[in-house]
C-alpha cells in the first residue's frame, strides 16, 4: 500500500499494468485453468481424514445378520406395491408397527407449473410413511434419518426391504441415544420436500440423514452422492465416514461412479481423477439435488445418498454386508455430541480418498476474476487520461459524464428487463404458446425461454441511438467498465456460494468481458460471443457431461437432453427453490447482454 501512496511509483505500476494488460490477462487465464486442472493431481491434494472426535476412535462392531430376511421383506413390498399400484401404505404402516416403531403417514399433493415429461407427472398426490424408533431415555431432541424412496416399477424394493430389516434390528439394540426416523417417501424429492416442510419437527433436530437406493439383491459397489440443492455439500466427515466403513467392511466404494485408482502418476490415472472431479464440478454447478438427500442440506442437516450399483464385476457384496455398513455408520452418527461441523463444507473430490479444500481451489477462480479487475483498471485509466483530441486536458467533467449516464443506464435497464422477461414469460405464456403452436407443455416452456433469449440479442444493441444520439467512444468505455465490474461482483458472489457454477461461468464469460470492444471485427466476434453465452455454455456442458460419464450421445439426442435440462432447471426452481435459473435469467444473461451491446456500439 505504500506503493500506492507514492504517486511516482503508483504511476509506474499503473503504466506497467496498462501497458502489459493483455499479456497479463492471458497469463492469468492460463494460470487459472492450469491451477484448476492441477487440483486433480494427487500429490497436490490432501488425503481425507476424520476430523470429528466422536466418530473417530470409538469402536463399533457391526453384526447385522438378517440380510436375507430383508430381501424377503423387499420382495413382499414389491408384491404389495404391484397389487396396490403404488405405495402400499397400509402394509408399510402395519409392518413398521410390528417392528415396534411409532408410525406416521403424511399425504401431500402438489401441482407442477407445467407437466414434467421426464418423470411423467403433473398433479402429484402421494403419501410418505415414516416410523420413528424412539431412543430409550432420550428427550426427543435429536434424530437421524434413513430414507428410501418408493419409486415406480421395480426399482428400489431392496432398499425398502433393507430399511425395514435395519429398523427391526435397530429396535432391539440398546445403545441408541438419538431417535432414528425410517422414512419411505413417494415421488422422490417432492415427497421429501413435503416431509421436510411439515413433519420434520416430530423427530426434534435432525443431525444427519442418509438416503438409500438399492435395486438388486447383490451389488458390486456402493456409490456416494453428495451434491445437493444449489451445489450445497454435506460436511466432509460424512463422506469420510462412508469411506472409512467401506474400507473396514471391504465394500468397493465409488464417487461419481468412479472407482479410485492408485496409478496417479500415469496419464490415465490423472485423467481418471480429472474426470471424477469434473463430474463433481458439473453436478455441483447444475444446482440441482442429485439424490433424495439434496433437500436436507438446506435445513443444515448433513445428508448423502448411497446407491448400490450392480455392474458386471466378479466381486459381489450381499445385503448383509450393506446392512453392516449402514449399521456401522448409524452407530457412529449416534455417538455424535455435536452436529457435524469439524470438517470442510466446501470441497471438491478427485477421488473418495482425496479432497481439495476451498483454500486450494479458490485461487483458480481468483486468477480468472483478477482479469476482470485488470481490465477495469485499464478502462479506468483510459477514461481518466485526457482523450488525444483535446490539448489542454481541462475538460469539464460534468459535461463529459452527463450524456453517458443515460447511455449506460439505458442498456442496463433494457438488458435487465429482458432478463425479467426470460424469467417470467416461459411459465406465464405457456398457455398462449400451446394455443398457437403444435407443441407439448414442456416444449412450450422451453421454446418460449429460447425465443426470449434469442430475442434479447436483437433487442437492446441499438437503443442508445434513439435515446442519446450517437454513441461516443467514451460511452462504451463507461458501459464496459460498469459491465466488467458487475460481472466481477456477480461471479465472485456466485463462486462463494457455488464454486463450480462460478468457475464455469468465469471460464466462458471472462474472455468475453476481456476482449469485447466496438472495434473488433463484428461477425467473428459476434460468433464467439454467442458461443460463449450462458445458453451455449449449458449446451456444451450437456455434451461434456455425457462425455465424462462415458455415455456420449448424438447431437440429436443431445439437443433433446438440452431442452429437458432447461425445463428441469425451471422446475427445480419452482419446486425446490433452486437458484440457478433465476441467477442465469435475472443476472448473468443481462450482464452478458451488456457485452453484446458493447460489440454493436455505433
Amino acid at each position: 500500500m505504500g506503493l500506492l501512496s507514492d504517486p511516482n511509483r503508483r504511476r509506474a505500476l499503473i503504466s506497467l499494468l496498462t501497458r502489459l494488460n493483455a499479456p497479463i490477462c492471458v497469463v492469468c487465464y492460463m494460470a487459472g485453468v492450469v491451477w484448476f486442472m492441477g487440483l486433480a493431481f494427487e500429490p497436490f491434494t490432501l488425503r481425507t481424514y476424520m476430523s470429528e472426535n466422536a466418530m473417530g476412535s470409538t469402536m463399533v462392531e457391526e453384526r447385522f445378520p438378517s440380510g436375507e430376511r430383508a430381501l424377503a421383506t423387499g420382495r413382499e413390498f414389491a408384491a404389495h406395491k404391484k397389487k396396490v399400484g403404488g405405495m402400499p401404505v397400509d402394509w408399510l404402516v402395519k409392518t413398521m408397527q410390528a417392528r415396534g416403531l411409532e408410525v406416521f403417514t403424511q399425504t401431500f399433493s402438489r401441482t407442477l407449473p407445467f407437466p414434467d415429461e421426464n418423470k411423467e407427472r403433473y398433479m402429484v398426490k402421494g403419501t410418505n410413511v415414516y416410523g420413528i424408533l424412539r431412543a430409550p431415555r432420550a428427550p426427543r431432541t435429536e434424530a437421524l434419518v434413513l430414507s428410501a424412496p418408493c419409486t415406480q416399477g421395480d426399482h428400489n424394493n431392496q432398499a425398502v426391504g433393507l430399511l425395514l430389516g435395519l429398523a427391526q434390528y435397530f429396535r432391539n439394540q440398546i445403545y441408541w441415544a438419538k431417535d432414528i426416523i425410517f422414512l419411505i417417501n413417494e415421488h422422490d424429492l417432492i415427497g421429501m420436500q413435503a416431509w421436510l416442510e411439515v413433519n420434520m419437527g416430530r423427530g426434534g433436530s435432525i443431525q444427519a440423514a442418509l438416503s438409500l437406493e438399492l435395486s438388486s439383491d447383490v451389488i458390486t459397489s456402493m456409490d456416494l452422492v453428495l451434491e445437493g440443492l444449489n451445489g450445497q455439500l454435506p460436511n466432509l466427515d460424512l463422506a469420510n465416514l462412508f469411506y472409512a466403513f467401506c474400507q473396514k467392511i471391504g465394500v468397493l466404494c465409488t464417487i461419481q461412479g468412479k472407482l479410485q485408482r492408485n496409478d496417479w502418476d500415469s496419464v490415465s490415472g490423472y485423467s481418471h481423477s480429472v474426470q471424477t472431479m469434473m463430474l463433481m464440478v458439473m453436478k455441483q454447478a447444475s444446482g440441482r439435488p442429485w439424490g433424495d438427500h439434496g433437500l436436507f442440506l438446506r435445513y443444515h442437516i448433513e445428508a448423502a445418498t448411497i446407491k448400490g450399483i450392480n455392474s458386471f464385476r466378479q466381486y459381489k457384496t450381499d445385503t448383509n454386508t450393506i446392512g453392516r455398513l449402514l449399521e456401522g455408520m448409524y452407530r457412529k452418527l449416534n455417538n455424535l455430541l455435536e452436529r457435524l461441523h469439524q470438517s470442510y463444507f466446501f470441497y471438491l473430490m478427485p477421488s473418495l480418498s482425496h479432497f481439495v479444500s476451498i483454500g486450494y481451489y479458490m485461487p483458480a477462480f481468483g486468477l480468472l476474476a483478477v482479469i476482470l479487475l485488470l481490465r477495469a483498471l485499464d478502462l479506468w485509466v483510459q477514461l481518466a487520461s485526457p482523450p488525444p483530441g483535446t490539448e489542454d486536458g481541462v475538460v469539464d467533467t460534468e459535461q463529459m459524464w452527463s450524456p453517458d449516464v443515460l447511455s449506460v443506464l439505458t442498456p442496463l435497464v433494457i438488458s435487465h428487463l429482458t432478463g425479467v422477461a426470460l424469467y417470467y414469460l416461459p411459465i406465464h405464456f405457456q398457455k398462449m404458446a400451446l394455443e398457437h403452436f403444435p407443441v407439448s407443455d414442456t416444449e412450450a416452456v422451453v421454446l418460449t425461454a429460447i425465443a426470449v433469449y434469442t430475442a434479447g440479442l436483437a433487442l437492446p444493441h441499438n437503443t442508445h441511438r434513439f435515446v442519446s444520439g450517437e454513441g461516443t467512444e467514451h460511452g462504451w468505455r463507461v458501459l464496459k467498465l460498469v459491465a466488467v465490474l458487475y460481472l466481477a461482483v456477480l461471479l465472485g458472489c456466485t463462486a462463494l456460494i457455488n464454486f463450480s457454477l462460478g468457475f464455469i461461468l468465469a471460464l466462458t464469460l471472462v474472455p468475453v468481458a476481456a476482449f469485447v470492444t466496438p472495434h473488433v471485427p463484428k461477425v467473428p466476434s459476434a460468433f464467439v460471443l454467442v458461443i460463449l453465452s450462458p445458453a451455449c455454455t449449458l449446451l456444451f456442458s450437456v455434451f461434456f457431461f455425457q462425455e465424462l460419464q462415458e455415455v456420449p450421445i448424438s447431437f440429436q439426442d443431445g439437443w433433446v437432453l438440452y431442452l429437458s435440462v432447461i425445463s428441469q432447471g425451471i422446475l427445480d426452481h419452482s419446486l425446490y427453490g433452486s437458484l440457478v435459473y433465476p441467477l442465469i435469467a435475472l443476472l448473468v444473461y443481462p450482464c452478458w447482454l451488456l457485452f453484446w451491446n458493447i460489440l454493436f456500439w455505433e
Partner: protein
Amino acid sequence: ACSNIRGVFLVFFFLERKLWNLPLLYDFQEELVIRPLHSGDIYASFQFRTVWETDFTRGNKVSHYRLFPKSLGQVISKFSVRELHISFTQGYWRTMQWGQPFQPAPPGAELWVWFQDSVTDVDSTWKELTNVLSGIFCASLNFIDSTNTVQPSASFKPLGIGNVTDHRFLRYATLPREIVCTENLTPWKKLLPCGSKAGLAVLLKSEKLFHSSFHSQAVHIRPMCQDWECKTTSWELRQTLNVVFDLHTSAQGKREWSLFKMFSRTLTEACPLASSSKIYIDITDNPEQFEVSPATPLLSQASVLGDRRTFSVYDLTQQITFGTVRSLNLLIRWKSSEGDMLRPLLHGERYVAGYGLQTGEIHTLMYNYHPYRSFPVLLLDSVPWYLRLYIHTLTVTSKGKDNKPSYIHYQPSKDRVRPHLLEMLVQLPPNSVTEVTVQFERALLKWTEYTPDPNHGFYVGSSVISSLVPSIVAMDTNSTRERPLFSSFFPCKEESSYFVRVYTEPLLVNLPTPDFSMPYNVICLTCTVVAVGYGSLYNLLTRSFQIEEPNPGLAKRIANVIRKMRGVPPL
C-alpha cells in the same frame, strides 16, 4: 374370605384411632402400581408417602424428625417453603402410546416452589434454595438463575391446602439438559425411612431402572389437611419414581413380565415402618389380554385420570402374600396383543420449523380427542432470551379458524436477565388440533456465552399444558378418604373433571455459531486486515497529494544563491 378379614382389619384400625383419639403424628405408606401398556411395555410407578403432623412455619424449633428426612425438613423451615416440587426425568413420556402418567414430568429437571408469604426477598431465597437442593440431590440445580426462572400466573397452583394466589411467591424453572443417573437416585433413596434395605425400595436397583425407556423420580412436599374439617394440618412428603420398561430391549420382544425381569429382585417383606405397603396391578383389561400370577382375591377400584380402573392388590404387610416360598415374584403374561388403547383426551407436541440460522417458528400442537366436549387449557411457554419471540406473529388456530385465547399473560424477555413467559388460556374445540405458532429470531451470543459444545444446540424447556379434562366417570372429591396414593396426587375439586398436566418435548435449537476451532486464523486475519488494510487505506484517504517541484540539484542551488546575491531572478 381374605377380603373380609382385611375389611375387618381396616375397620378395626380406624376404630382404634378414633377411640384412642390419637393424632396420627407420623405415617409412612409405600405403594407400587404396575400397569401393563398396550404397546407391550410395562409401567411401574412407586410412591412413598411420609406424613408428619408438625408446624415448621411459626418459628418452631423442630429438632426431632423421626421418619421425615431431616435434610428436607431443615430446608422447609429455613427457606419458609410452602410447597416444593422437584422432578428429575430421563426420557420423554409417550402419551399416545402409554396413556397419561400418574405424575407427569418434563425431560430434565423441573423445580417449582411456593414460598410462605412471610418471605420478603423471594429471589435471593430462591437462589439459595436451588443451591442447597443442588447439593442434596447431586444435580445441576445451581444452574437455575434469573435467566431460566419464571413466575407463572395461572399454570402452577398450589397442590396442598392454602389459597395463595399471589404468584409473587411462586418460582418455576426447568433444566431440560439435565441428565439423570445413579448419582441422583442414591440421594433420593436415602430420603426413604427404610432406605433401600426393606420394602418396595429393594426393587430400586439402578442397573435396571436406567435400562428402561423412561425414568422419572420426584419429590413433592406440601401441607395437607389431616381430617375432613381440616382442623389440623400436616406436612406430606411424597417421593415418586416412574419407570417404563421396553418390550423389545428389556423383554426381548416377549410379552411376559415379572418383578424379577423388571428389577432383578423379588420382594420378601414390607418396610417395617410402613403403615401400608401395597402393590396394585392394573387388570382392567383382564382376563381378555393377560394373566397375573400368583392370583390375588383382593380387588380394588379407583377413578384415576378420568377412568374407572380395577386393580389386583397385594398387601405386603400380610405374610400370606409371600406364600410358601417367602418371596413374591409377580408374573404378568399377555395372552394376545389385540385391542386398542383408550386414547388420552389431551395431548401436546411441539417443534421448530423453518431453515437458516436467522429466524424460525415454534409450533405447539394441542390435541383434544374428546368426541363432543370442548375444554379450556392453560399453555405455559418459557423461552430463553436468546430466542427473541416476535409476539405479534402469535397465532392460535383450531380447525382452520382463528381461536382467540381468553387470557394471555406475556412477559417479554430481557437480554441476559430473564426469559420470555407466555401463558394463555385456550378453549380446545372437540376432536380438534389447536396450533399455536410464534416466530422468533436467533440472537448472536457473546463468545463467552456459548456452551462448550455450541454446535450441539441450545435447549428450550417443555411447554406445559394444564387442564381440567371432562371425565367419563365420577371422580372422587373427598381428599381425606383412604385411597390408593396414585389416585390422590392432584386434588380433585369436582366430580365431572380431572386435572391433567401434559409436557411437550423440549426443543433443541441451533444458534448462529462462530467457528471456534479457528481462533488463531481469526486473530491473524483480523490483525492483518487492521494493520495493513486499514492503516494504508486510512493513510491514502487522509493524506493530501500535491505535485511538488522536483528538488533542484546542488549546482543549481548554488547558482541560485549567487544569482540572488547579484539581484538577478533565479533559474
